[in-house]
């Protein structure tokens, strides 16, 4: 268990590629995997590593996140000292309430960083999902004496239309020291992609941020890492487990489907490292007389009396008799009325699909229906 590091999660604004899924929430608050939000994974990674001090930098649209995280009880982070700190944008004289970039945000919460008792800072983004603990990367960071250690994995996928905080690492011969970085590359020369996890000494972090802030720096990667890549001793730590990057509706859909079909995705449901999330006190899922369900991940509280195939059903979804749901992701509380037919569809929370309605998306182009819609 890690005693000498604390965590800081930067939750950005909506991502345009996420379309209606981030209409009223940050990517961190997007539901994933049947009962979780995207942020649950990295937050549980922190908790499962023994880290008891985690700050979450929120921006506009943070209410959904605030509601989800609450007091941090579910993560056992509702502590008297330390625990979970929500760091919403301050509206003070210095600040208009919206950050220009992450350096802005880090600058404005530097007091929290300074007051934290731990030596090492684990900096995290909030659109990358994996289930691990940070003991090994921290141990490597200490052994190598690196200034910054970046967790990365090998990921050959690339779509220039859907890049989101795409940072790639090029190593020197020993394969560990980073000699070059690519940020939103048009023609990537590396498949080693940052998992949005960086370990850095807290004093160095403060130095780098404050120095850059004073010169108008905006983006931590662009204005600090890229600028100083040759002066800083940046190392990589390779992670070989399953990594899902929620960059766009398409990647969201693809990674959701991998929960059904790609055995390596079951990493995320690893029992040794449970993923904590907000408890809803739902009852067991109920299958009716006419239920016909195959290859499905389904959360508690669902009521199914129709056909469901190759789909992910979040909590409290109703599928009435005669309805057919295929290759779809149905979020919390949505209702599929009798006789409706869905294929390649993403329903956000609380959507109602009326009787007999047909909704068809396509491979690579799933249809998204926004929260609380009735179709």
């Amino acid at each position, binding site marked *: 268990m890690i005693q000498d590091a604390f965590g800081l999660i930067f939750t950005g604004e909506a991502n345009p590629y996420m379309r209606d899924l981030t209409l009223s929430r940050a990517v961190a608050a997007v539901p994933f*995997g049947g009962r979780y939000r995207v942020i649950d994974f990295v937050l549980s990674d922190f908790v499962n590593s023994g880290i008891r001090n985690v700050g979450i930098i929120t921006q506009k649209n943070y209410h959904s996140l605030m509601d989800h995280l609450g007091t941090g009880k579910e993560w056992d982070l509702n502590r008297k000292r330390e625990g979970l700190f929500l760091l919403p944008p301050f509206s003070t004289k210095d600040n208009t309430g919206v950050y220009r970039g992450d350096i802005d945000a880090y600058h404005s919460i530097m007091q929290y960083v300074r007051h934290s008792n731990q030596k090492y800072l684990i900096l995290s983004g909030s659109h990358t999902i994996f289930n691990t603990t940070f003991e090994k990367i921290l141990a490597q960071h200490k052994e190598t004496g690196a200034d910054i250690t970046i967790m990365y994995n090998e990921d050959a996928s690339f779509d220039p239309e859907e890049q989101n905080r795409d940072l790639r690492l090029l190593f020197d011969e020993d394969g560990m020291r980073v000699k070059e970085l690519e940020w939103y590359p048009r023609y990537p020369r590396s498949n080693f992609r940052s998992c949005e996890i960086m370990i850095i000494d807290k004093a160095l972090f403060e130095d780098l941020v404050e120095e850059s802030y004073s010169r108008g720096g905006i983006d931590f990667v662009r204005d600090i890492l890229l600028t100083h890549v040759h002066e800083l001793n940046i190392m990589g730590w390779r992670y070989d487990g399953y990594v899902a990057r929620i960059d766009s509706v398409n990647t969201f859909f693809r990674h959701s489907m991998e929960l059904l079909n790609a055995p390596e995705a079951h990493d*995320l449901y690893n029992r040794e490292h449970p993923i904590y999330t907000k*408890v809803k*006190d739902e009852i*067991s899922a109920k299958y009716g007389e006419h239920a016909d369900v195959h*290859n499905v*991940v*389904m959360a*508690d509280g669902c009521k199914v009396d129709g056909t469901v195939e190759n789909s992910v059903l979040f909590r409290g979804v109703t599928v009435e008799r005669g309805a057919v749901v295929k290759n779809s992701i149905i979020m919390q509380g949505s209702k599929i009325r009798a006789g409706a037919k869905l294929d390649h569809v993403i329903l956000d929370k609380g959507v109602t699909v009326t009787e007999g309605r047909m909704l068809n998306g396509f491979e690579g182009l799933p249809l998204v229906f926004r929260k609380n819609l009735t179709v």
Partner: protein
Amino acid sequence: MKKRIVCMLLAGGQGSRLGVLTSSMAKPAVPFGGKFRIIDFPLSNCVNSEIDTVGVLTQYRPLALNAYLGTGQHWDLDRNNGGVFVLPPYMTEHDGRWYSGTANAIWQNRSFVDQYDPDYVLILSGDHIYKMNYTKMLRFHIDHKAAATIAVLKVPMEEAHRFGIMNTDETGKIVSFEEKPKQPKSNNASMGIYIFDWKKLRDYMERDDADEKSENDFGKNIIPNMLNAGEKMVAYPFEGYWKDVGTIQSLWEANMDMLGDPPLLDLDDPSWRIYTRNPVMAPHYVSKEARIKNSLVTEGCVVRGEVEHTVLFCGAKLEEGGKVFDSVVFPGSKIGRNSIVHKAIIGENATIGDNVLIGEPPKEGEVIDNRLTGDIALIGNDVTIPDGTVIPRGAVVTQETLSQFVNGGTNA
């Protein structure tokens, strides 16, 4: 700090009739309805009735119950003043005694109640499944200026002989009480739910405690004594689902009651949530080959076989080719390939191997001790059933009795 009412929950002992299922926990911690434990029902009823101070009286494995209840947060009972406390019979320097009866359990913990200086005390049993607003009952108690109020349920006349029967006059006043009468005069069955004026109850318990012949029981001693002394006692009529799950058969039946459409008791009622300690598990997974009908399936389950009219608790696993009918599968149990389970209760963390048959008709000449179970096969907690075993209907399988089935077992 003063409370208007305090609840004392008689969580009871080992539950010998449910013995095989209570090897690691007291009876109230027996799983129910896919996600719950029996004790979740009275606790949730309390919280929903705005009663925030609950003593749980148990003689059996208080540590495990303590660990289950934790700070009480899952039931919203982590209060600055009040909350939920497990109260085992503790030793003092001078003595210590096993709770000799239901009334004695309360008497031994009178100082717990006195801390809150309550006007009323609510006494509950820990092995009933129902939803009830105790505040309404309290209002009834106050309106009737009663010394004691007992909740009653109309049962079919032909079953009345199995219950404690309250005979009332037209105003609801109890005029006499008969425990399991052969010739019942009415069908108002006591539900084991009492509200007393605390001071009055304290007096009667004190006298009862001094009476060496007393069994220190509410039904046998306290209530008859109060009636004889002319105290005003009234029956509070309850309507709705209520089930004593103190036997294997009633436990199985009550689970099956949750499978109806609509179920006999709606567990998914936003105005009356049943709270529980939610396990931290992934959503359940249903494979391509699976087939599920008329069943409850809970998070953490993996279903690759066929499930019908069955309750699967969290983390239960069914492998390919396995079939489960009319059964209750407790948390963490695994059922292997091509095994068939029919009308059974599978205890917690039991492991059923491959090609096992459970709930088969007995073979010729085979004699099964099914006094506890009727035709329900019962597999104890943590039992491992080897591949190919045949377990007849009504059999009780524990680590101890397992050998008699394994040797005689043949692969179907």
